[in-house]
């Protein structure tokens, strides 16, 4: 019902969009004339770059840091890795990032599911069960990283620096998915960016784990990477189907 209602007033229908200058054919030329009368200094935008650069150069403090290991086992592993010239906190930071990413991923799918619940089967786009399946896999990936963080003697409740920036990244996607006015197709477009980043994230994490000598963990991460590749493929397929159907060219 919901999906049918949306199809009745799709955002691609002709409406009253007033944002373009063609809405105001008399006022706009007057605005442009006024704006063009402002003297322009060549390379003016460079001043903004300079201010940003000044802050970059003067801000040695990062967003935050990694906490010390919490268990004797963690301390011992850190010492061994450091002795080999490795920096184990990089692996833990990236694991913290994946942990946060997958946890947010389950919430993103919670929001997506709302868009399809109760909708009739149209044969196009994801079914409720499909999204539940993807959500369950995000949760499994969360559990996977959680288990290994504990095994490595790290605190899985920590928000690591990369977890924090991943959270910033996800904010726009979350806004698209939770807005009641957005369509399923718009949501798929948004979550695709998350899935593509997630796939690349698992690929990197697998590589990092293998280089750190964590072979078994790397093998499990590789499986997660393969699962995420499958997520990419499915989301892309649904999105393509829906857009092509909307365009009448399916």
């Amino acid at each position, binding site marked *: 019902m919901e999906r049918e209602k949306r199809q009745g007033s799709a955002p691609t229908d002709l*409406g*009253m*969009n*007033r*944002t*373009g*200058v063609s*809405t*105001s054919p008399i*006022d*706009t030329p*007057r*605005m*442009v004339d*006024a*704006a*063009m*009368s*402002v003297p*322009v*200094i*060549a*390379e*003016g*935008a*460079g*001043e*903004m770059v*300079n*201010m*940003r650069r000044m*802050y970059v150069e003067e801000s040695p403090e990062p967003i935050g840091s990694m906490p010390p290991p919490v268990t004797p086992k963690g301390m011992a592993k850190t010492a061994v890795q450091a002795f080999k010239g490795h920096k184990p906190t990089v692996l833990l930071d990236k694991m913290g990032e994946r942990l946060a990413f997958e946890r947010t991923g389950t919430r993103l799918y919670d929001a997506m599911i709302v868009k399809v619940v109760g909708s009739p089967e149209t044969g196009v786009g994801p079914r409720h069960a499909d999204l539940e399946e993807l959500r369950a896999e995000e949760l499994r990936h969360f559990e996977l990283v959680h288990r290994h963080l504990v095994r490595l003697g790290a605190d899985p409740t920590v928000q690591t620096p990369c977890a924090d920036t991943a959270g*910033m990244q996800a904010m726009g996607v979350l*806004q698209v998915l939770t*807005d*009641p*006015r957005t369509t399923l197709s718009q949501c798929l477009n948004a979550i695709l960016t998350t899935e593509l980043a997630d796939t690349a994230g698992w690929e990197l994490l697998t590589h990092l784990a293998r280089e750190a000598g964590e072979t078994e963990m790397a093998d499990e991460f590789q499986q997660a990477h393969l699962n995420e590749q499958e997520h990419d493929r499915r989301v892309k397929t649904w999105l393509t189907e829906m857009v092509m159907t909307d365009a009448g060219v399916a």
Partner: protein
Amino acid sequence: MALDLRNERGVALDKQRFTWREMVSPPISKLDDDAFTRVRVILMNGQETEAQRFSHACARMNRALQLPLARVRRVEQHQATMINWLISPDHSPLETTIAYEQVAIEVTAHVAEHEPDPYMAQTYRFGMLEDFDHLYRYSALLDRLEGKDANNITQSYSDIVPGRPTVIEHRAPEDDLRRPYDRRTADALTKIHATLIMAGEHQTHDYYMNIGPLFADPVARQLYAEIASIEEQHVTQYESIIDPDETWLEKWVLHEATEVYAYYSCLQSESNPRIKAIWQRMVDYELGHLQVAVEHFQNIEKRDAAEILPATLPDPIAFRSHRDFVRKVLNQEVDLRARGTEYIHASQEDEHSPSVLYRSHLNSLGSPSETVAAGYSWRPGTEVTELMVATKGGA
């Protein structure tokens, strides 16, 4: 049809109720609604937040009024929510900022054109040219930070060019105070205008103070810091034009009358039928609040509200482009400065005056408003369209 302020009773206070579902209704469309629908939403949120602010201050100073104020204030809290939640979440904080400045320009322009007191009208024109410049600076930031066109928000109703440069708007506090109107002789419209614009500026100040730290970009953080400081000056300016000898109850009645007037103006011009119904409901609620305030005013002060209220509402606020008026003022008054409560030409400003010394220090390590807009001219579709042309030309 003019509204009879003294006899229209509106909806009784105890009948004014809300549910969460009513307060959180579908928002306006950033893309499809007219820019002035958003202007009205922002203006009225400003009036409601001022109602809250005033009511709390009044309650702290007047034991006998605490309960009636609390009752009215609770409704106003929910009115503010219902109105402010109409802003849709696809507005970035910076896009909403552009809309705030459009409110400041177009509503202040209307007020300046209709203000009966020449000194007050001059004060509104003076402030308007500063907000006009803010629109230009924030438009440069929106373009250069988010890659978006401010005119998607302002819809060609407002020019995007420099006004009185923000860098020189910084004044010492003694140059931000103005002469107040006289409560005994001032026109009712003068009083309503002052409350209306003060409320809008106060809201803008608070909005910038809240969202400034949400930006990661240091240029944006600096620009919000700078313009929030000017908005603080504007609040200082506009509250100083209100007679401080008005009684608390007099001020309460005038606040409620201003809200009735502003909602009534919105109702007259709204193009979105769903939002229009909200304005109608709010007019009826505010008339109910006015009745409560008048009743206390008359019972406690033993004065007739007719002393301070107009019999009918003035002409409604014209929610339309004031381009020609703004251009004329820009052309004639951009070089005005303030000395004490008076306006002077820039050439008369002493280089050792408190304001010059104050802003010299503030700007001594750089000016964010100058930095962000260096070399910036608004053009349809953003500055990037010009870069595209330049790249093609160079290829």
